[in-house]
């Protein structure tokens, strides 16, 4: 058993380092030759649609699923051989907010404190601190099952960090939670990161990935892009993004899709986002007017990650096609 004061691990080196990480289930390759590094104190988002290999990656990093090939170190420990050391040092929170619904708020925290062998001295203070962080003061004796989604989520986070882990894994942490609670949750995450905690979060919400310092995009088990949200927008979007509003967006979309060489057109609500490398937007407006839409207006806009994501996925799709 490796002690917590071990020299090779914990304090130095990157929080996560994987090279050529691969996992097969029979003939299917869930994670294919993934390589990346997460530095200490980073908020790192692992972005991808459902079934893209996010959860398989996180399970390998937590030491509960051995990789088929490649290697990885988490907090300096080998994910294949030193799972026990990793498990003691990481926090983990899943989208299911794995709380005991028949236990009270305090009993849940006490249970996980016992599981992670938090010393008894200072435990009461630690629990008070987490209760305050989650905004659950006065609800310590409330049965967890009767809490609302946002509170459950924050309590689950409290349980995941009761032992002050230097690295926190969040697997789809805000699934099924209202937008206000999501914002509160990310404020808490940034607070933890400011205190030096490394955060590794999987998500399929693109707006959520904007909270991250860096984003890795995974598709069909392959790491397709990696960088800061700003880098993504700069590097992966070729051209300028425009928003076109008009009274008949669907007709406009059809018209523009017939136009050769316009770039990518996609519908956001009732607004069209158009990515084009041309400086001149006159041909676009002409095409729309030719389709009988007179009230169209076009203006350049700042891209979101969603634009990047759609650009990347359509690019891949055309490559394959």
């Amino acid at each position, binding site marked *: 058993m490796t002690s917590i004061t071990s020299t090779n691990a914990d304090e130095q080196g990157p929080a996560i380092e994987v090279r050529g990480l691969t996992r097969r289930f029979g003939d299917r390759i869930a994670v294919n030759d993934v390589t990346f590094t997460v530095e200490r104190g980073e908020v790192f988002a692992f972005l991808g649609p459902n079934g893209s290999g996010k959860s398989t990656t996180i399970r390998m990093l*937590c030491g*509960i699923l051995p990789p088929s090939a490649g290697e990885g170190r988490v907090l300096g420990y080998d994910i294949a051989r030193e799972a*026990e050391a990793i*498990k*003691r040092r*990481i926090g*983990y929170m*899943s989208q*299911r*907010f*794995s*709380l*005991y*619904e*028949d*236990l009270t708020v305090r*009993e849940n925290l*006490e*249970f*996980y*404190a*016992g*599981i*992670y*062998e938090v010393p008894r001295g200072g435990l009461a203070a630690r629990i008070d601190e987490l209760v305050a962080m989650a905004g659950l003061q006065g609800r310590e004796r409330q*049965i967890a099952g009767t809490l609302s989604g946002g509170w459950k989520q924050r309590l689950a986070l409290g349980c995941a960090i009761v032992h002050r882990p230097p690295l926190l*894994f969040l697997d789809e942490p805000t699934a099924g939670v209202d937008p206000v609670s999501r914002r509160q949750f990310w404020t808490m995450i940034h607070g933890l990161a400011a205190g030096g905690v490394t955060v590794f979060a999987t998500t399929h919400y693109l707006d959520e990935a904007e909270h991250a310092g860096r984003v890795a995009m995974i598709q069909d088990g392959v790491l397709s892009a990696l960088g800061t949200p700003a880098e993504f927008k700069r590097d992966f979007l070729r051209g300028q993004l425009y928003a076109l509003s008009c009274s008949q967006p669907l007709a406009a979309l059809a018209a523009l899709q017939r136009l050769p060489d316009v770039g990518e057109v996609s519908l956001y609500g009732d607004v069209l986002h158009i990515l084009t490398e041309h400086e001149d937007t006159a041909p676009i407006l002409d095409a729309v007017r030719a389709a009988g839409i007179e009230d169209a207006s076009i203006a350049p806009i700042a891209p979101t990650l969603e634009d990047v994501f759609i650009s990347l996925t359509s690019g891949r799709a055309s490559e394959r096609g």
Partner: protein
Amino acid sequence: MSLSRLLAIVRKELIQIRRDRITLVLVIGIPVVELLLFGYALNAVTDHIATAVYDESRTSASRAFVAAFEHSTYFDVVDHVQTREEAMAAVDAGRARVAILVPPSFGDDVLGGRGATAQLIVDGSDPSVAQTALFSGGLVAQAQSGRVTVEALARTGSTRAPGGIELRPVVLYNPRMLSAQFMVPGLIGIILQMQAVLLTALGVVRERERGTLEQLIVSPVRPAELVLGKVLPNVALCLASTAMTLVMARVLFGVAVQGSVVELFLLTLPFLFGSLGIGLAISVVARTQAQALQMTMFTLLPSILLSGFLYARESMPWIFQGISAVIPMTYYLQILRGVIVKGVGVGVLWPQATALTAFAVVVLGVSVRRFRKTIE
């Protein structure tokens, strides 16, 4: 093995057991309901059998003969009828389970020492009633015939004693053939098995359903800590419940433990651990609590039907006797009836205890290994 982690799990389990209504029903409700159902229901049919009497003789001898049936308490005369057809109709309609037909010559035959006959009509549709009626009716008749023979000899002053011996019916262990003595010890085993299997299976499957098992897998908890932490509270709970059932058996049915209570609990442990192992095995396979419940009931059926709890093993076809031989309840039933009814102990029952221990070791070993695989 970390004591902190083990204690955290045990504490959590105890809190959950206290709060969970289903668990409380399981631990307290099942023993009460089962005891009342099986104990009273089966007790009621094996004595006080409704009896119709057609006495054509109308003599003191025939009245004494019928009275002997009533005094046995197995038979309650509910109807005196005037024709044979009426007697048959009473049985047909279910007003009576049994009819005693005494022929006109009965009184004279008894007085004259000519060997009197009477007829016992038994409703065979319920075998347990029929068996009791035939068996106890036979005993009553034999006893009565012995008595009248002695009386006849005394009256006639004959010196040629025709072996006027009164047959004394002796039934070992359960002199009145009380069904409670027969049913209750077995019930204790059935209840214990149901609780141990269900508590363990539900306890694990519930965590899987709610996603908390996934959380524990990512935590430093070792499989052994998880198994022990979940099983230990169940051991305590099942033993407490068994103690409660024993007290109820005593209060409600007068079934007292003839042997040593300490030895009874000692001999219960291997059966209990085997049952916990079955529960753990179910928890590996079952995805939902409903599935776990169904599988538990499925494992309970052979214990009820083939262990000798309801039907004697001796009368089963050879294939079922074979199955019966590998069912833990078969052996635990012998232990329960041995200690509670016959008053024997470890000295006699060690072969059964050894068989149960072997079963527990195998089942626990296999299921812990499979369980370890599912969570690692």
